[in-house]
């Protein structure tokens, strides 16, 4: 009688047990790996197991590769941690690149200009403050415009990236060394003034520890402080915020100062903390990749550890297979794309439930 019942109908789930949600994610990743393996064999004739093994070797193969993975994760996570409070407030800060670059510029300027005038400890403190302040100022400008005149923060922060790149390009010409080379080279190579110290012989450990501490701080800030609560209220409904007396423009400006300062910190860790130089490409698009890290984790700092791992792992893995099997670099990107598609797509199955037509029982009636 009900032969016209649709084959599938979709309903929204009211809630889903955590275990079930994790299971759906795992199935999605397994399905993605299966499809990737199939495509790999079809397109390249390679054994997919070997390709996957090579991807894993790319991140975990040697201790140097492992530390590279951790360093990249930490830097990406640092920018994502900066974006999370702004995003929770529904302020779409796409200016992470520019804010971090300005932080790096400010720190480099300190190293170059006063590197031989103050003690090393004082220099590190000064350059750190300068980097955080520069990042904060770069975020403050669009925040003020948003708070006062309700300008579109997405475009504004995005454009600030290009301004930052041009400013850095300008200073690179001024400070270039050797003259005419078009880049700065290692700053204070002989004195190592302003360089962040290494813990033991490991040049990345300090960065990783700083970002771990920052992750915990941001987690508690967003979840348990009055500021964090105000950010959530403003993000959910500005009218409610005004109704209970929250000064919305104050919260926007305060949160963006924080967001920019953390981006500045990322620039600091990438410049004086790691590469000891300044280049327009030093942030390497992390301001944008971090948007994905933050969104995939729904702005939860702890989950962002996993999503930043995932993105860095896929990125490094695709580089590795490109070199190991002499494949075009794009092939790795295709695999990365497929895996991300499945992970994001699995959200559908977590939020909705499919019902298939019950066969037999109805007809018998």
């Amino acid at each position, binding site marked *: *009688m*009900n032969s*016209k*019942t*649709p084959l599938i*109908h979709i*309903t*929204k*789930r*009211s*809630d889903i047990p955590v275990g079930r949600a994790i299971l759906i994610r795992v199935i999605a990743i397994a399905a993605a790996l299966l499809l990737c393996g199939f495509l790999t064999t079809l397109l390249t004739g390679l054994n997919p197991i070997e390709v996957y093994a090579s991807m894993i070797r790319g991140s975990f193969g040697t201790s140097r590769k492992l530390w590279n993975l951790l360093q990249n994760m930490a830097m990406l996570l640092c920018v994502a941690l900066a974006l999370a409070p702004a995003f929770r407030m529904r302020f779409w800060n796409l200016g992470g690149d520019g804010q971090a670059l300005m932080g790096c510029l400010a720190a480099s300027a300190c190293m170059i200009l006063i590197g031989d005038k103050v003690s090393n400890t004082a220099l590190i403190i000064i350059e750190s403050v300068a980097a955080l302040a520069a990042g904060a100022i770069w975020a403050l400008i669009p925040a003020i415009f948003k708070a006062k005149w309700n300008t579109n923060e997405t475009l504004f922060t995005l454009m600030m990236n290009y301004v930052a790149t041009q400013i850095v390009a300008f200073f690179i010409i001024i400070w270039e060394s050797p003259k005419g080379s078009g880049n700065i080279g290692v700053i204070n190579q002989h004195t190592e003034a302003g360089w962040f110290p290494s813990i033991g012989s490991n040049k990345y450990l300090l960065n990783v520890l700083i970002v771990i501490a920052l992750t915990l701080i941001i987690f508690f800030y967003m979840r*348990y*402080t*009055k*500021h*964090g*609560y105000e950010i*959530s*209220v403003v993000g*959910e*409904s500005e*009218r*409610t915020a*005004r*109704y*209970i*007396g929250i*000064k919305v423009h104050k919260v926007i400006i305060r949160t963006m100062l924080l967001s920019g300062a953390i981006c500045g910190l990322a620039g600091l860790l990438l410049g004086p903390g790691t590469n000891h130089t300044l280049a327009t490409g030093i942030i390497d698009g992390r301001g944008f990749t971090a948007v994905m890290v933050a969104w995939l984790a729904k702005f939860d700092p702890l989950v962002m550890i996993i999503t930043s791992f995932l993105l860095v792992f896929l990125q490094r893995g695709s580089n590795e297979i490109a070199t190991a099997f002499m494949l075009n670099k794009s092939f790795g990107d295709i695999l990365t794309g497929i895996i991300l598609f499945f992970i994001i797509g699995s959200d559908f199955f977590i939020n909705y439930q499919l*019902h298939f037509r019950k066969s037999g029982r109805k007809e018998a009636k």
Partner: protein
Amino acid sequence: MEEKTPKLSMRGITKRFGTKVVANDNVSLDVYAGEILALLGENGSGKTTLMNILAGIYYPDDGEILINGTPVTIASPREAFEHHIGMIHQHFKLVDVLTAAENIVLGMNEEGKLDMKAASAKIKQICDAYGFEVNPAQKIYEMSVSEKQTVEIVKVLYRGADLLILDEPTAVLTPQESEKLFAVLRNMRDDGKSIIIITHKMNEVLSVSDRVAILRSGAYICDRITSETNAQELTDLMVGHKVSLNIKRPEPKDPIERIRVKGLTVKNIEGINKLTDVSFTARSGEILGIAGIAGSGQKELLEGIAGLQPIESGTIEYVHHDGTTENLIGKDPLEIAALGVSLSFVPEDRLGMGLVANMDLADNMMLRSYRSGHSVFTNRKNPEHLAREVIKNLEVNTPGVHAMVRKLSGGNVQKVLVGREIASSPTVLLTAYAVRGLDINSSYTIYDLINQQKERGVAVIYVGEDLDVLVELCDRILVLCDGHVSGILDGRTCDKQTIGMMMTHIGEPTEEANDEQ
């Protein structure tokens, strides 16, 4: 009626949301041609879900639908139209920048070139047949709420609907507009169409419907021929036990002046006056009702007092217990609270202003109190405790204190909001449309809460739309007409007709306007 085949039958319809919520439980319902069926039930009793199943928005988990005795499948709104079923939703689904005619033909996918002339002619014909007034060339954004609703109705008729479902159509209408709508509905019924109407207003059920079907907690209870029943019986059936339909009005106990408003003028962003020279006083232990057509300045008045609305000119004075006064003009809600003025505000827009839909009950309780203490961390213990108190005292139906507010039904949302606002022991309570969209039981809970506040000596300002309630509940009634005070009446002696007249005519002479100093 027994010998007729129903035009539409629902048999054993069951719809679950998730594993816990059963919105419709084995519901069977018949609708005949040429009748107006009122669907009655409390908030969350499954009326809208059941109608959404008919309109193809939800698909039932179980059960079947028959049209003229033939089983059919309705898997999408388009299929609903193919079966001549059309639904007018509570929230209109119109494109603002298009004209009425464009909205009506939108998505029809008729053969050949779009012929707006022919469409307009057909629209005109529908309007003439039933007594609608629509200008096909008018843009939606230029229309009043009731005109938009008319467009929605014409839209489904244009698509050939002969079974119309209206979900709380009068919630947004003035009494006059409602009467006009009912006249049209009766015309359509006489033309042989079937109409299902969802409404909470008992007097409307009794005046417009032929038959009433009652749902309770997702289950079908019974039906009654309207002419053979009364408001009391229907309410009892709907709630499941005896309820008293009288609103209490205790005598005010030594009222003293609490809020003095003088010459208040408010302009909107376009510079047009929303309030003009409004003066009145609100007294402790008294309910001051505000009556007026929607948009006559009620919102601006309350938000002005609450410190959320820039004031053009005039004064708003708060009188402390010791007789000293504070001027509230130019102060934001925090500054007003800092003066020791305990002011609570239940705004019209519950989920967009009073509460945060995506936060749980406890976090919503915290909105008012999170600043307390010097710690940088929030204290979630007290709000959770308050949430439990509110759930218990106001009988909020929720899975717990950590349920998202958006998942609660309208009545429960309002209980949470009112519960929070009165928890701070206010001296002034402002409420805007406190019972809009609420079923009878929840409405009476809210009236009781407001009366309790009055007896505590709170100065209550109650903005309402139901004149029957205003004259039963309020001690004095201020009537607004287009931002002007049309007059202030004694609630015990005035009648609905006078208020209705004053809502549309400024300065109607009245001997009862005796309260102004």
